[in-house]
């Protein structure tokens, strides 16, 4: 465990709380599609400590992406509680969640999901724009730093359509870092990349984690999973391995 002290998001900067970064308690999630009810999570208890580098693994449909959606507030649990950085996010409104997410969580999607009409620099600034962080120049400077970190400063003015898949994913990581989040989650962040690019991407996530950011990611790739501090295996909506107290 790399540390259990963190800054509580949305609180004054001199206030600190202790405890896990992510705490899922008895979380259930049932998807309803027409007449079909599909239980994706069946009462999960899961804890991720601050600064951890955690991989979620499991077969397709096991519920690992759903866990990421739940812990980022993208989806709401059908039952159970979700506490992230000391805050019950399952009790927030959609707008509160959006605001909280923008400032505290960085998300890296499998298909990059960059805004096609914004340049790399603008994409990397976007969460700061939404959060009204600093002046425009400060945002631009910070986004430039992040692009430099992912070795893309020379393509700051390029649109996503002018970037390769690997470059787009690096912009997505720069975007995820925008508001200095305490938590970065990646849903198959290397799933759409060749193995060499994927490896480079992981180096990047690892370096972010080295800076104290908690990283949780979903992967199908056993090699990528092995690079995590801890692997949590999910099957049929349950944690089957890697969680303290789990079977």
């Amino acid at each position: 465990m790399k540390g259990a002290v963190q800054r509580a998001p949305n609180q004054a900067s001199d206030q600190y709380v202790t405890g896990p970064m992510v705490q899922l308690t008895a979380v259930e999630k049932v998807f309803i599609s027409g007449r079909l009810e599909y239980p994706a999570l069946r009462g999960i208890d899961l804890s991720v400590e601050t600064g951890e580098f955690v991989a979620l693994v499991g077969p397709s449909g096991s519920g690992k992406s759903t866990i990421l959606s739940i812990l980022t507030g993208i989806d709401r649990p059908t039952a159970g509680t979700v506490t992230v950085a000391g805050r019950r996010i399952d009790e927030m409104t959609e707008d509160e969640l959006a605001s909280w997410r923008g400032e505290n969580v960085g998300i890296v999607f499998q298909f990059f999901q960059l805004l096609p009409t914004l340049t790399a620099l603008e994409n990397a600034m976007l969460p700061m724009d939404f959060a009204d962080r600093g002046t425009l120049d400060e945002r631009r400077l910070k986004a430039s730093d992040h692009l430099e970190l992912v070795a893309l400063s020379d393509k700051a003015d390029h649109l996503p359509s002018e970037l390769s898949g690997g470059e787009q994913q690096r912009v997505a990581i720069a975007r995820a870092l925008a508001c200095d989040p305490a938590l970065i989650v990646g849903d198959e962040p290397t799933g759409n990349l060749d193995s060499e690019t994927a490896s480079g991407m992981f180096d990047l996530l690892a370096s972010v984690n080295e800076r104290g950011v908690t990283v949780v990611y979903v992967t199908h790739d056993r090699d990528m999973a092995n690079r995590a501090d801890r692997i949590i295996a999910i099957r049929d909506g349950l944690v089957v391995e890697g969680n303290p107290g789990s079977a």
Partner: protein
Amino acid sequence: MISALRRRSLRELTKRGARSWLTMTTIAVAVVGVWLLAIPALIDDAMTSRLDDDRLNHVRLFPNAVVLSDAEIDGLAELPNVTAADAKIVAGGQVNLSGRLIDVGLVGVRDFSAQRVDVVAVESGAAPEPGEVLADGENLRFGRLAADIGDTLSITGPAGTREFAVSGTGGTILFASGVREGDPILYMTADTLRDLTGWPGVTSIELHLDQRDAAVVSETITAAQVYLDDINPGQSYWLAPGTWDPGEWPDKDDFDNFRSLFTILAGVAVLSGLFMVYNTMNTLVRQETHEIGMMKALGGRRRHIAGAFLETAGLMGLIATIAGSVAGVLLANLLVSAIATSLMSAQPHFGVPLEVLGIAAVIGIAGTMLAALPGVLRATRISVRDAMEHHGIEARYGDAWLDRALQRFRFLSRSAQLGLRSAARSKGRSVATGLQIGLAAGTAIAFIALGATMVFLNNQTFDVEAGDIHLFEQGGRGLDDTTAGIVEAVDGVAAAHPIHYATYGFRGENYGVWSLPTDTVFDYDLGAGRWFREGESDVVVVGQALANVEDLAVDDVITVERFDGPIEVTVIGIDNLMVNGGKGIFTPLTAVLAAAGRSGSNAYWIETVSSEEAAVDAAAGGIEQALRSRGHSVSTELRYVERAANQSEASLILTFIVLLGVPVLAIGMIALVSTMTTNVLERTKEIGVLRSIGARRRHLGKMLRTEGMAVAFVGWLLGVPLGYGIARLLIWLISRAFGASFPVIFPLWSLVPVLVLTLAVAALVVRIPLRRVARMRPGDALRYE
């Protein structure tokens, strides 16, 4: 047992519920536009119904106060071809309004409870008892005479002055139709009017006929005159009795012009609707390209696929036609109710013209299928691979100069930048929607131009008649060469300009004639030829509509029926003004007075020193007094009163132009809602991403508003030339209906309010897709296909 393809057609409607509803709503709104075509037919019905209720006469004889008993009048109904007969006393009188005398028409009805022809109906209050009058509803509507129930009016007739209480309002089309451009009308019992006039008998005999053929009507008139001669030998009747041809009624020309206007405006609504249906179906089919690829991959042949999609389109069209027709019928009837009651004093019945139902069905169902056809055929022609890789509308961004240009708009907030660039991303659709909005904005601009042109023509027609007071002779001792001197000697009078009003017959029609001096104050506007010169006699200047309708040109020699018989005159000029609906004839005053053996004209346009209403009132009073004291029987018309009546009529027409314009605008704005919602649906996943990285409702709102307003701005830009074109077309069509050529008044100021309105409505309508976006959870949005 239905095939899988047909099942697919049915399920397609529910599979993408929101899109289907939007498409059907769009088509339904277009169908509502079609129903505007019902307005002329419904107005016709309302008018026919009014004519039936009023039992408008088919023939009217004008005896000189002939004494007829009730039994003798009833006896007229026993004549061959006569289904009903009635008689009235009709006279001129004057009402004293705070010291000023205004001319009124007085109508005496034998028995209000047993009228047979030209029935005077009571709209409010009660039928007049002896000593009471019923005011025509049009009096107030056109600002001629405001008289409430219970008011007392001092009315002067040939036999003296009496006080009358107003018992209510009502009227009959025969007399009411004259109020707009003539005198107010008051109804009373025949006995009351007999007392006021001193006339023993009736002055109007009205017959309602069975057969309306000219020959039969002529026989009937002869039979009636023989019948009346037997009762009162030697009694003279006007030789030219008034008759209405089948389908004709008082002011039918004005009504027809108005109806043409509605037909044209409804046509614009239909065109707008058709374009929207095409636009919507094209978008819908392009979104289905991926599915078309799947069907082809499974062995579906082009005709199967096209058939399935057209079936879906047909189903949507059917549902939309039913919904749109229900709304359209209600809207059309509502508009007709407003028009008929305010302009025609007619109470329309709820109606559903079947021919419009047919057009609505053709446009709603067949039009929808046809609109879908090009897209379906295009989609079935592309390869399976291309179709399978197609996800909604292709939206490549960054290559075009516009995309690069927009990236320089760094002063905007990020949300606004996103919105603006999103609009540029789907260029094809944005332009198509812009065009739709452009059509709506253009229609609004065109309607304003149309209104401005109508008001201009109305004012121009009014203003060409110079002076603050118009003086007319009223039987008895008319006006003569001493009149101008007498009038100009009255305090407050600056000048008196003679004009002689008459009627000429030409090719079977009667036309109003203004005889004017060579150096007239009438501000003519010649489109061709010249005005008459000193000493000319057998020459005329004709209005442009008369020239167009009768194919007259300068130097044509024509034969006209003057009061002294047929004469040959040379057309020397064509006037562009709309005097007498553009069908006026102008002749030299001296020639007409010489032919009539008069020393002076029968009317004057009088200019007062001050145009203040009180000063004009005083001058009019002075003129009447000065002339009456010298034995002249005259009446005056105050131009400021006429101007108010004229403006009131123009306002009514403008109101209805606006009322019709609103549905056309609504169609355009619903297109914007439809497009914005479709845009949002297509970008649902992207919006999920935005929510995931911290976008709040206000950010999304700003983004969508900017996008909507950018598209609306493009629409407005397109709408300006479109509006000018539509305005020219509308005014050309309407001027054709009048047989004239109207100028196009295109007020540039109108562009600003239309821009503001377009942007405001765009900002407002994006709230609908925004609500959907804000409600959606990011997880659902990210999973949306």
